[in-house]
């Protein structure tokens, strides 16, 4: 007789620990069941409220501008879809994979992100060629970071943490750091790449404010500055990032993926997507941040147009995808990115394995995938009577479960009201 608690996976894991004496490390993010946006439903327009839009004969606007209305940003970033590609590094991914992401983002009229570790010429060239906006990341180790790197971007993302490994640093053993990656990261060849778990030069919120000032001075007050946070104390962290002067706050849920992390962290630390919105929006409302042009970007577990719609209705302005775009490029979720032996050629530095990835084909797939999500989003906007993604509100949603209503403050189906705890 099998046990629910002591199932085969648990038994195997315990036995493996008996051999290794170490916590498990693997790629991707949380596998266990966590609350998701599936616990919400979208309300179609019928007689009450707005009439549905006759899409595609009537247009739905999906353009998003980040940095607009911000005093210290002269070049806001405009994307044609609220769906963008999250930060993933050259190092965790192959060069070909990074170029595919840049191409795919361009096809979809969106933006890609260097991730930690700097960039390489072909990535930027590909982004420019296909018209993708280019976000350069400033992370804890400053690998590959310089004044010219910051100026090569359309936006800068200061990464405080990520959802799959909040509070943890990064580690890539020396054998995974090729001579080219070492050069790009500005580290001696033959050494592992170790990222501190925090910015050693950000000791308090005022230092983050000074960091943002530093960025603004270096890019001459042109680019929007994002601050990326792994979801934890969401309300307090968002308040701090707003106070520091961020133009956009990127909240990465505990359902986000990564190339390599400790399983116990990705499974058991952080707040899942569904739980991020209420505290984040409370922080936004209390500070009038939206009115002041600050944007909320969310990522970590977004899979389709319905997820995007729900995230926007809950308060996000744009939504980042990582795992889903890799799957669209051919990833089959073996969750062994950390081994560097990706047979698809995505998460590897092995030239033979990388050669298996036709990056242009992968780029086209990524582009089509993001475009298809955007079309789904338009359909859902149309049926709920919205001609623009910017019109979506929590009134367009209902919670399917008591838990989801309690977590989000969304009205519960049937009861058709907010739960009493939200109305005090």
């Amino acid at each position, binding site marked *: 007789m099998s046990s629910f608690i002591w199932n085969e996976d648990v038994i195997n894991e315990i036995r493996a620990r008996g051999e290794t004496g*170490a*916590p498990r*490390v693997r790629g991707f993010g949380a596998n266990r069941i966590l609350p998701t946006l599936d616990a919400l439903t979208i309300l179609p327009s019928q007689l009450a409220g707005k009439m549905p839009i006759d899409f595609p004969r009537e247009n739905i606007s999906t353009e998003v501008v980040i940095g607009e209305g911000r005093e210290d940003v002269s070049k806001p970033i405009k994307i044609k879809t609220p769906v963008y590609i999250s930060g993933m590094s050259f190092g965790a991914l192959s060069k070909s994979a990074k170029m595919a992401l840049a191409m795919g983002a361009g096809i979809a009229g969106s933006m890609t992100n260097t991730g930690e570790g700097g960039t390489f010429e072909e990535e930027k060239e590909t982004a420019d060629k296909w018209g993708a906006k280019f976000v350069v990341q400033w992370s804890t180790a400053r690998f590959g970071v*310089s004044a010219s790197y910051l100026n090569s971007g359309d936006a800068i993302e200061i990464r405080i943490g990520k959802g799959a490994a909040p509070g943890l640093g990064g580690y890539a053993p020396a054998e995974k750091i090729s001579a080219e990656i070492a050069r790009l990261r*500005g580290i001696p060849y033959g050494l592992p790449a170790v990222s501190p778990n925090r910015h050693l030069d950000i000791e308090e919120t005022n*230092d983050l404010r*000074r960091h943002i000032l*530093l960025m603004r001075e270096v890019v001459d007050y042109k680019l929007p500055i994002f601050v990326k946070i792994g979801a934890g104390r969401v309300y307090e962290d968002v308040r701090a990032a707003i106070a520091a002067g961020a133009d956009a706050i990127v909240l990465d849920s505990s359902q986000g993926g990564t190339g390599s992390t400790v*399983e116990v962290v990705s499974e058991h630390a952080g707040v899942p997507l569904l739980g991020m919105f209420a505290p984040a929006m409370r922080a936004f409302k209390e500070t009038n941040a939206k009115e002041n042009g600050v944007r909320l970007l969310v990522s970590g577990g977004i899979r389709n147009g319905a997820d995007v719609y729900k995230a926007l209705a809950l308060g996000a302005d744009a939504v980042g995808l990582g795992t889903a775009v890799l799957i669209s490029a051919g990833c089959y979720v073996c969750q*062994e990115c950390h081994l560097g032996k990706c047979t698809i050629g995505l998460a590897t530095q092995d030239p033979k394995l990388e050669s298996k990835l036709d990056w242009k084909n992968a780029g086209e797939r990524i582009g089509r995938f993001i475009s298809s999500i955007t079309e789904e989003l338009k359909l859902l906007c149309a049926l709920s009577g919205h001609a623009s993604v910017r019109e979506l509100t929590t009134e367009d949603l209902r919670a399917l479960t008591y838990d989801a209503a309690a977590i989000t403050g969304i009205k519960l189906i049937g009861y058709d009201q907010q739960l009493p705890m939200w109305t005090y």
Partner: protein
Amino acid sequence: MPEALVRTKDINNALKNYIATKYSDPSKHAKPPKISNLSGQDCIAVGISKNVVIFIEGNAGDYFGALNAGASIRLTGNAGKFLGDTMTAGEIIVKGDVMHGLGAFMSGGTIVVKGDAGGRVGIMNRGGSILVHGSVKNYTGLYMMAGDIIITGNVGEHTGHWMMRGSIYVGGDIGSLGTNAKEGTMTEADKKKLSELFKKYGIDENPELLSTYKKIEPEKYAAFPEPEYEKVLLKGVRA
């Protein structure tokens, strides 16, 4: 300093305008702006990629000269935290004391401080040279991966903590060494390197004293933190 140059933005704009004119129209013989009486403004003279010489007087705030990518910046006065942060090229010369985090994350160029510095000098250094003609506090060279840190005076506790490569030279006393740091042997090449640097930057150090300098280097090259990570994490890597 002119009345208008009070905000960081205005001070840096004066520098940017000077550099832009100097490079766009050399015939104008642009003169560098006179920046004096600096009073704690943060992020001054940051991210300059051109080979220009800039003189600044007064007390700088935090992140002075950060992301310097080619300029020679001379500060007469004290400075706050993280001077020269993430610098990639050029030089910064300070006649005064600086707070902690001097040269954090730098990957190239030279910083010279003729005065004392706080703790965590040269953390994550990946190839820059830092010379402090004075004493510093704890955690000098934390996580450093390359480059040189030279302290003519005393250093505090945990010096070289988890350093992977690079060298720390100390003329005075060492409070304690950090994990993976050990005292090595000063070679003739080391003495020559230091002697040339002292001469270049006008540090009046008796050449005979160089024999008394201590050199701190990693216990195990390319080690940190592989053994620890192997113990804690890499064993957990499995298909």
